[in-house]
């Protein structure tokens, strides 16, 4: 916050009156809260007990003879769990840590039950006022245990789905470097199209989880938008700072060759443009790599969410991971590698090791996500990660757009048919490869 006051000596010493004026509303609010809480009979009769609400967030099937339901109190007040059932038939059970749950507290309900693989089950929890909450599991499957074997299986899946496709996509680097400006723009906008698709996909998927699995108490849908926007503006800020700092440090030895279009002035918040041409050249050098790095991070977050989804799907018994499905993911995610290398096509040659690091940043989180999703699945965490990924991706799209705008001499983006075609084709490719998954 900047305080815009002429008299700087006054701004340092905040007077008692200022503090008082700032605090008065809080005192009023505090008094009101105390009054309301201490005189419930006067204003509001609390004879009506608020309706309880329980979310069954996850159901695990263990050892052929135990079902574990992870429940959370998502209602407005404390609740007590009274009974548990499987397919609407009451069974003995245990609740850990205890049957009384404060607001938002969670518990494990353990039901000894001989279950059959592949059959649907509905798990029900009844609270002490007789309200029953059910959760349907479409197909019972043994829950993955965090063993070395299972962890390596998830790592292998993550490698196939995340790292290998991205690395394959990175192999387009030399091809992209040899393209003419228009074709380069085409591929950049294709990247933007791919990313916009991924961003929307992440938002839709998190919305689906929010609606299907999360209790209304979490306000998860607004949380998605909020997290995505906060991530977007935070990453915009971080990337600007990165570029600024890098500009200050780097020496003016520049390999960049203006080549096709570099007549523009930088629009950025660098008001003290004493050496605008130098700053521009630096930016033109630095920004592609920074953009690629931001794309790697954004895609990394996206793949983390994808990993969570894959792990959770295995856990929830929703998919049998077949080679066909992995092939689909591979094709789908190869385009992500292309997205990473596209901005760097006209910059200085990037060492292979750096490319590999970017590939790992983008693809590696799939493994981490699969572990967390498979062993510690949480719908709220999945929603948050997917939203972060969406925000990160939209930041990258902004960076690419801004980059193309400046390298095109600020002549606009939407009047170039290569850009429009690339953008549309990027989304179409994602849609079509997405059908395979």
């Amino acid at each position: 916050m900047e305080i815009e006051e002429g008299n700087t000596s006054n701004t340092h010493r905040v007077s008692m009156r200022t503090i008082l004026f700032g605090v008065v509303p809080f005192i009023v609010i505090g008094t009101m809260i105390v009054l309301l809480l201490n005189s419930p009979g006067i204003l509001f009769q609390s004879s009506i007990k608020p309706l309880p609400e329980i979310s069954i967030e996850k159901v695990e099937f263990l050892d052929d003879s135990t079902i574990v339901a992870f429940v959370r109190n998502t209602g407005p007040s404390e609740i007590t769990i009274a009974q548990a059932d499987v397919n609407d038939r009451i069974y003995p059970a245990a609740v850990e840590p205890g049957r009384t749950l404060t607001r938002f507290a969670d518990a494990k309900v353990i039901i000894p039950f001989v279950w059959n693989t592949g059959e649907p089950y509905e798990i029900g929890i009844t609270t002490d006022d007789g309200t029953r909450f059910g959760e349907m599991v479409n197909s019972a499957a043994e829950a993955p245990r965090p063993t070395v074997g299972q962890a390596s299986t998830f790592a292998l899946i993550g490698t196939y789905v995340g790292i290998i496709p991205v690395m394959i996509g990175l192999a387009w680097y030399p091809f992209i470097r040899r393209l003419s400006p228009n074709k380069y723009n085409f591929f950049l906008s294709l990247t933007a199209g791919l990313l916009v698709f991924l961003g929307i996909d992440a938002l839709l998927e998190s919305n689906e989880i929010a609606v299907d699995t999360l209790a209304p108490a979490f306000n998860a849908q607004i949380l998605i938008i909020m997290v995505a926007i906060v991530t977007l503006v935070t990453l915009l800020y971080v990337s600007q700072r990165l570029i600024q700092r890098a500009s200050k440090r780097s020496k003016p030895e520049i390999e960049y060759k203006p080549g096709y279009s570099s007549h523009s002035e930088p629009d950025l918040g660098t008001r003290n443009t004493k050496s605008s041409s130098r700053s521009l050249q630096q930016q033109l050098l630095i920004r592609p790599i920074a953009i690629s790095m931001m794309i790697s991070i954004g895609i990394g977050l996206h793949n983390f969410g994808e990993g969570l989804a894959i792990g959770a799907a295995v856990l929830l018994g929703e998919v049998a991971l077949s080679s066909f499905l992995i092939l689909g993911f591979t094709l789908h995610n190869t385009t992500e590698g292309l997205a990473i290398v596209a901005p760097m096509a006209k910059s200085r040659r990037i060492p292979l090791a750096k490319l590999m690091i970017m590939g790992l940043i983008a693809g590696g989180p799939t493994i981490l996500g699969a572990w967390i999703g498979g062993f510690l699945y949480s719908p709220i965490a999945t929603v948050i990660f997917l939203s972060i990924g969406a925000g990160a991706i939209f930041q990258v799209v902004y960076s690419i757009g801004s980059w193309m705008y400046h390298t095109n001499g600020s002549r606009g983006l939407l009047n170039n048919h290569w850009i429009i075609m690339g953008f549309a084709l990027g989304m179409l490719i994602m849609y079509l490869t997405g059908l395979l998954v």
Partner: protein
Amino acid sequence: MSYPRIAVLFGIVLSVIIFAISTALYSRGSLSDQNSSKLDSFGGHTPGYPTLQTTGDVLDPTSFVINPKTAVVEPMKYLREFNYGKLSASSNGTVIRDFTIIASDQQTKEVSPGVFYNVWTFNGTIPGPTLRATEGDTIRITLMNNGSKFHSIHFHGIHPSEMDGVFEGIAPGGKFTYEFTAEPFGVFPYHCHMQPLEEHITHGLYGALIIDPKKPRASADEMVMLMNGYDTDFDTENNFYTVNGIPYYYMHHPIQIDKNRLIRIYLLNMLEFDPLNNFHLHANMFDFYKTGTKLIPDEYTDIVTMNQAERGILEFSYKYPGKYMFHAHKTEFAEKGWTGLFLVKEGTNQSINENLNVTLTRNSTNYSISDFNNTTDLVSTGGVN
């Protein structure tokens, strides 16, 4: 090249934060895996099902006993409790039986272990008290309405229109005396008949009236069983099914009976929402007297199915000692509470003598021998009939 390094750092920091959040979200859950000094066992009632240990709370409606102070009824007490009323004689010598029933609708009681429900009751319990009279007696039942809504008692049986408990509701705080002659003999439900009927019945305003024939039935170990259910979450589907008010009660408190002793059950169905209910007896057969209005059994069977308000009398005795289940053979109901056990013990001499008595005094029933393969079985069961 500092910028990629910064970006890499940023990525690492973000991953760490992500991991920290997800771990924090689950730290609570994994805490419970730690060993604690207090361990309870649960499960294992069913063959093949594991018995597990927990540090948490055990939920087990099949073996937990409700505190009688909060329970909606004490099923063991209800089972053999018959209210004969306050006796007096009219000028012409007719026996008058006076009963007092208090209706209430504002209590919350435990209907299944840990589950509390706003119950509407006659005399504070579900089912209400079992009233008993002999054919020809004058029955006088004073209903006092201690509730917040209009209530009434509608008796099945023969009586004048104004004693039918349908058109005249008793206002909160009011009272009314129903008076009629006990006729015919049999088993009859009584229940509140105010609108909405479904609401008044499903909340618990019902009970049994037994009218004995003038010449008493044979001596027996008599009990009442009233089948009902509770829709505790108001979705017009029952969450619990019971016999005598509390799910699974007779599983952990088996009904003790003597071997070879004649058992007579007055069975009624007051289940709301579900069109059918039934009673199935294990390892035995019973004589069934539909509605209890005849002295000759209608059927010799091990299962009887009833709609709401249907009822009858079951008579049987056990040949072998041991534990025997009885339950609804609608397995959904059985597995939501309508299950119980008889514990048959070696009988005392007295009960055997009584049994012989019964054999002598009662009419023999004609069975088609071709229906049964084992004649000795028929003879021994027939002896009880």
